C-alpha cells in the first residue's frame, strides 16, 4: 500500500489561510460582480428614466408652447396688434409678458400678417424669420426646430382669427423658444446630465419635432445613490477583505507560534531521539502555550528519560548478550559466530596492514569414541580441558574459537609458518600434559592440528586459509603422521590432499550412482579342512578406472556421518551380487555394517528383504566392535529380529574396542572375529600370546563361534587351529577378489545362465 504523502502543519495552516483568502476573494469578487450588475441595472434604469424625463420635458415644452399659442391667438391684444400694429413692438416686448401670455425670457412671440410677413423686424438677439418659412394651414398650427448658429430654436406658428368662431383670418403668430435654454430653465432634471444633451441638427437645418427623439442625444446623470451604494459596497468589501486578511495573518502568526513552532520542536525532538541526539535539557525549560502540547512535551521528555535508562540497560544487556552470543557456553572460548565476525573483520584489517597470517585448525582425535564411551559429560569435560590448554598455549592476543563439536580454530597475525608450527606444537604439548586422568579418562587424548599460512604478499588467497587448514587437518589425522600438518609444505601432502579430495568426490558419486561400489569377497575358511564357509563382502569404489580402498574413504564416511547411506549402498550391491547367482551356492556371505546403522529402520528393512537369499547363502552381519553403540537395547532388539530370519551376528575387530565384554554380554552375538592385532600375537610365545589363547578358549567355551582375522602365516594358522578356532581369514588363505574373478575361480554361472544350462 502506497504511503500517503505527508505535509507539514505549517503547509496546512498556509493552505487554510490561502483557502480562506481565496474564498473571501471569491465571495468579494462575487459581491463586486453582483454590485456591478446592480449598478448596471440601476444605470439602465437611470438611462431609461433620463430618456423618459427628457421626452416628458420636451413634450411638456411642446404642450406649453401650444397652449401659449392658443392663448395668444385668442387674446384681444393680439388681435388688436394685427389690426393696429402701431405699438406692436411694445406688445411684443412687454405686453405678452405682462399679460401673462409668455412667461420665459427664452420664449419670444411675433405676429405675421395674412401674407406671412412679419409685422415688424425683430431684434437680432431673438430674430424671427421675416416671412413664415412654412405655409401655416388655417386652423392648424405648425412647428419646427431649427439650428440657428448653434442654438436650437423651436418655432410654433399658429393662425389668429378675428373672433372665436374663426370667421376671419387676421394673421399669424409665431412663438420662438430657445429649446435648450428653456429646457434647462423650466425643467428640473433629476436623471439627465443636461450638459450632455445634444441635438443632431446641422446649422441652418430644420427638423420636425416628431423626429426629435431620434436626433436627441443625452447622458444620464450619475445617480448619487448608486455611486454612494457602489462606494459603500466597495469600501465594505475592501474593509472586509482587509479585516479578514489581517485576521488570517494574525491567526496564522498565533497558529504558528502556538501550534506550529511547538509541534516543529516536538518533531525535531522526536527526530533527534530517532538519531540519538536528543538533549532533554534543551527543551526542559520551554513551556508551550497549548496544554495538550505541553503535556505531550513533558510526556516526551519523561519518556525520553525512561527510554535512555532503558536504552542504557538494554545496551548493557545487549553487550552481555553479545558477549554471550560470541562465547561458547561449554568451553568459555569464542564460538563459531564470533569466529565468523572476527575472521571477516580481520580480513578487512589485513587489506590496510598486510602481514603474515596463519590459520590453525584443531580437532580432537577419537573424541567421538571418547564421547560415546564415557558419556557426554566426560566428553564435555575433555573439550573444556582441551580449550583451556589451547588458550594457554596461544599468544596473549590470539583468540580460540570452537567451531563445533571437537573442532577448534585460531588465526595468528604477524607470524610465520615456523612460529605457527611452534605454537601448534606447544598446543599439543599442553594437551598431552593435561590431566585427563583426573576426570577418569586414562586413554591418551590428542589433537590433530592443520595449519595454513598466507604471506603478506599472498593475501589475495587468504580466503582459502580455512579450507587449506581443513585439508592440512585431514593430512594430520592420517595414520603415521605427527598430528601437525602445514598445508603446502611438501608435495606428498599436497598429493594426498588431492587424493583425499578425489576420494571424497568418488564417495559422493558412488552413493548417488548404483554400481560404483564394487564388492570384493574374501573367503573365510573352516578348520581344519579349510573349506570356504563364508565370503566377507568388502566394499571398494571404482572411480575413473581406479579402485579406491576403504582406508581412503572410510574416514570420509565417518567424518561426514555417511554410515547409513554407505551401508544401504553396500546392501544394494550385495543384494545385486546375490541376485546374480554368481556367488558359490551354499557359501555364506558376511556383510559389514556399522553399529549405528543397525538401529536405522530402513537398514533393518533392507536386511529383512535380503534374507530371502538365506536359503542359498547363509548370511552373517559383522558389527565392528570399535564402533560406538549408544542405543544398546534397540540394537539388541533389531539383531534378535535379524537372527530370526537366519542372520548370524558377528562381533568384528574384537580386541580393538573399548568395551568388548559389554557388547558380548548385551548383544546377541553368535560369532566373534579376533582382530589381526590379537591374532598376530599368537605368532610369538609370550604372555600376550598366552592371554589371547586363553581368551580364545574361554570364548569358545562360552559358546561363541570364533574367527581369526589376518592370518598371514602358517605359524599363526597352526596356532589358531591348535586353539580350536573354527574359522580363519587372511591373505594366507585368500585375498579379497571381485565377483567376476570369484565366479571365474569357482566356476559359478549366473543363476539365469545356470538354469539355462
Amino acid at each position, binding site marked *: 500500500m502506497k504511503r500517503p504523502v505527508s505535509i507539514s502543519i505549517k503547509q496546512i495552516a498556509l493552505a487554510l489561510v490561502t483557502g480562506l483568502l481565496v474564498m473571501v476573494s471569491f465571495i468579494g469578487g462575487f459581491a463586486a460582480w453582483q454590485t456591478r450588475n446592480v449598478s448596471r441595472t440601476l444605470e439602465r434604469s437611470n438611462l431609461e428614466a433620463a430618456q423618459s424625463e427628457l421626452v416628458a420635458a420636451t413634450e411638456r415644452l411642446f404642450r406649453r408652447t401650444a397652449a401659449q399659442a392658443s392663448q395668444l391667438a385668442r387674446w*384681444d*391684444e393680439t388681435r*388688436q396688434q394685427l*389690426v*393696429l400694429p*402701431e405699438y406692436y413692438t411694445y406688445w411684443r416686448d412687454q405686453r405678452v409678458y405682462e*399679460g401673462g401670455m409668455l412667461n420665459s425670457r427664452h420664449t419670444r412671440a411675433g405676429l405675421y400678417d395674412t401674407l406671412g410677413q412679419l409685422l415688424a423686424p425683430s431684434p437680432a438677439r431673438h430674430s424671427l424669420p421675416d416671412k413664415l418659412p412654412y405655409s401655416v394651414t388655417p386652423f392648424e398650427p405648425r412647428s419646427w426646430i431649427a439650428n440657428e448658429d448653434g442654438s436650437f430654436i423651436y418655432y410654433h406658428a399658429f393662425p389668429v382669427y378675428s*373672433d*372665436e368662431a374663426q370667421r376671419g383670418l*387676421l394673421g399669424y403668430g409665431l412663438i420662438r423658444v430657445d429649446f435648450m435654454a428653456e429646457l434647462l430653465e423650466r425643467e428640473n432634471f433629476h436623471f439627465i446630465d443636461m450638459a450632455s444633451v445634444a441635438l443632431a441638427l446641422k446649422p441652418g437645418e430644420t427638423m420636425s419635432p416628431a423626429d426629435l427623439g431620434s436626433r436627441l442625444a443625452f447622458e444620464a446623470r450619475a445617480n448619487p445613490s448608486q455611486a454612494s451604494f457602489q462606494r459603500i459596497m466597495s469600501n465594505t468589501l475592501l474593509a472586509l477583505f482587509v479585516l479578514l486578511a489581517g485576521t488570517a495573518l494574525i491567526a496564522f502568526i498565533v497558529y504558528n507560534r502556538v501550534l506550529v513552532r511547538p509541534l516543529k520542536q516536538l518533531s525535531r525532538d522526536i527526530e533527534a531521539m530517532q538519531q540519538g541526539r536528543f538533549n532533554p535539557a534543551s527543551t526542559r525549560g520551554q513551556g508551550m502555550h497549548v496544554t495538550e502540547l505541553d503535556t505531550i512535551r513533558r510526556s516526551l521528555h519523561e519518556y525520553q528519560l525512561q527510554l535512555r535508562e532503558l536504552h542504557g540497560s538494554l545496551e548493557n544487556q545487549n553487550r552481555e548478550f553479545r558477549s554471550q552470543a560470541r562465547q561458547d557456553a561449554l568451553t568459555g572460548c569464542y564460538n563459531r559466530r564470533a569466529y565468523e565476525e572476527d575472521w571477516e573483520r580481520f580480513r578487512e584489517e589485513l587489506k590496510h596492514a598486510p602481514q603474515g597470517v596463519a590459520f590453525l585448525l584443531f580437532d580432537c582425535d577419537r573424541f567421538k569414541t571418547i564421547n560415546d564411551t564415557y558419556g557426554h559429560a566426560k566428553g564435555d569435560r575433555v573439550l573444556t580441558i582441551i580449550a583451556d590448554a589451547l588458550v594457554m598455549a596461544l599468544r596473549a592476543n590470539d583468540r580460540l574459537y570452537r567451531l563445533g563439536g571437537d573442532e577448534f580454530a585460531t588465526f595468528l597475525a604477524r607470524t610465520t609458518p615456523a612460529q605457527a608450527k611452534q605454537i601448534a606444537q606447544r598446543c599439543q604439548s599442553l594437551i598431552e600434559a593435561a590431566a585427563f586422568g583426573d576426570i577418569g579418562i586414562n586413554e591418551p587424548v590428542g589433537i590433530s592440528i592443520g595449519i595454513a599460512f598466507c604471506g603478506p604478499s599472498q593475501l589475495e588467497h587468504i580466503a582459502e586459509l580455512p579450507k587449506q587448514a581443513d585439508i592440512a587437518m585431514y593430512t594430520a589425522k592420517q595414520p603415521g603422521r605427527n598430528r601437525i600438518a602445514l598445508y603446502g609444505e611438501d608435495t606428498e601432502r599436497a598429493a594426498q590432499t588431492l587424493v583425499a579430495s578425489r576420494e571424497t568426490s568418488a564417495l559422493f558419486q558412488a552413493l548417488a550412482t548404483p554400481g560404483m561400489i564394487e564388492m570384493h569377497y574374501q573367503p573365510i575358511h573352516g578348520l581344519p579342512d579349510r573349506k570356504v564357509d563364508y565370503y566377507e563382502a568388502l566394499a571398494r569404489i571404482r572411480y575413473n578406472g581406479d579402485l579406491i580402498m576403504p582406508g581412503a574413504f572410510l574416514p570420509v564416511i565417518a567424518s561426514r556421518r555417511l554410515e547409513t547411506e554407505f551401508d544401504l549402498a553396500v546392501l544394494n550391491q550385495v543384494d545385486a551380487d546375490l541376485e546374480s547367482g554368481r556367488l558359490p551356492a551354499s557359501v555364506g556371505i558376511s556383510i559389514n555394517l556399522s553399529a549405528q546403522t543397525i538401529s536405522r529402520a530402513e537398514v533393518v528393512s533392507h536386511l529383512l528383504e535380503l534374507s530371502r537369499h538365506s536359503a542359498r547363502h547363509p548370511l552373517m552381519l559383522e558389527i565392528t566392535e570399535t564402533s560406538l553403540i549408544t542405543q544398546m537395547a534397540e540394537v539388541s532388539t533389531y539383531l534378535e529380529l535379524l537372527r530370526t530370519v537366519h542372520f548370524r551376528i558377528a562381533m568384528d575387530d574384537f580386541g580393538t574396542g573399548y568395551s568388548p565384554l559389554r557388547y558380548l554380554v548385551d548383544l546377541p552375538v553368535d560369532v566373534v572375529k579376533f582382530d589381526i592385532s590379537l591374532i598376530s600375537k599368537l605368532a610369538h610365545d609370550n604372555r600376550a600370546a598366552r592371554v589371547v589363547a586363553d581368551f580364545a578358549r574361554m570364548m569358545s567355551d562360552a559358546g561363541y563361534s570364533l574367527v581369526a582375522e589376518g592370518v598371514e602365516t602358517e605359524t599363526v594358522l597352526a596356532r589358531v587351529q591348535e586353539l580350536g578356532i573354527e574359522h580363519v581369514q587372511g591373505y594366507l588363505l585368500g585375498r579379497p577378489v571381485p565377483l567376476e574373478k570369484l565366479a571365474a575361480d569357482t566356476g559359478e554361472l549366473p543363476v539365469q545362465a545356470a538354469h539355462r544350462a
Partner: protein
Amino acid sequence: MRLALLCLLFWLLSGAQAAVVTQTLRPGIVASASYLVGDRDKPAVLLLHGFLQTREFPTVATLAGGLHDSGYTVLSPTLSLNIPMRAQSLACEAIHKHNLGEDVDEIARWVLWLKKQGHSTIVLAGHSFGSLQLLAYLSGRPDAAVKGYIGASLIGTQIGNTLDRRMLIAQLEEQVRSTPRALVSQPLSFCRKYTSTPSDLLSYVRWDQARTLAALKQIRLQTRLIMGDADGMAGHNWIKALQHVQARMVLVKGANHFMDGEHEFDLLEHTLEFLEHIGGASAS
C-alpha cells in the same frame, strides 16, 4: 341660496333668446353686442358696461337679463376699444389705443342700429364708467329716439391723488403736441397704470367730477341715477355733489359700486320703475 337659483334662471332664459350682433365700426374693427328682443311697445334699453369691461360683466349681464325678462328689448354692446370683436376685459397695462370720442361714436352707432331695428324709444342705461360714457354721448348731439338716461353707480374719471388734474391735462396737452405717438402711463379710474397715447388719455382725463355734474345738469331727458350708499369708489362727497345738483337719484342702502348680491334686485327694480315711467310717458 335664493340668489343662486335666480342666477341660474336668468342664465337659462337669457341663453335661450340672446343674439350677438356685430357691426364694423372702423376698418378692421368689428364690435359686437348682445341683442335681447323684448316687447316692441316698450322702450329699448341700450345697456353699457363699465370701464374696460364687457357686456359679460355680472352687474350688466344680470341687469340685461332682468330687463329682458320684464319684456324690454336690451342691447348690450361691448365697446371695441379698437380691438376687433373684443370679448375680454382689457387690462389696464394694455395699449389703450382708444378714446372717449370713439366710445361715444360707438354708442351713437349702436343707437342708430337700434333705431334701424325699429325701436323708436330708447333708454340709455350704463353702469359706472359706462354711465359716464353715455353721459358724454348725451352731452353731445344725442339721437331724438333717446328718451331716458339711467346712470348706475355714475362716476367721474379719477386720476389718482398724486397729480393735479389741471397739471395732468396740461402735460398731456403738451405731449399731444410734442410726442403724440408716445405711450404714457397714468393712473386712471381703477387702473394704477393705464397706458395710452396722450390724446386718448386726455379724452378721458377731461371728464372730471365737475364736468360730469355739469353734463348731468344739462341733460334734457328724464334721468335716473341709482347709487349705492356704500360705493367706496365714488365716495360720499360724490353722492352729496349729485344731491347738490338735484339730480334725480335713488340711493340704494348698503349697495356698493357694483350693486352685486341682493342689490342687483334693487338695481333692476329701480331701473324697471324708471322704464315703466318712461314707457308711460312716451305712450302718453
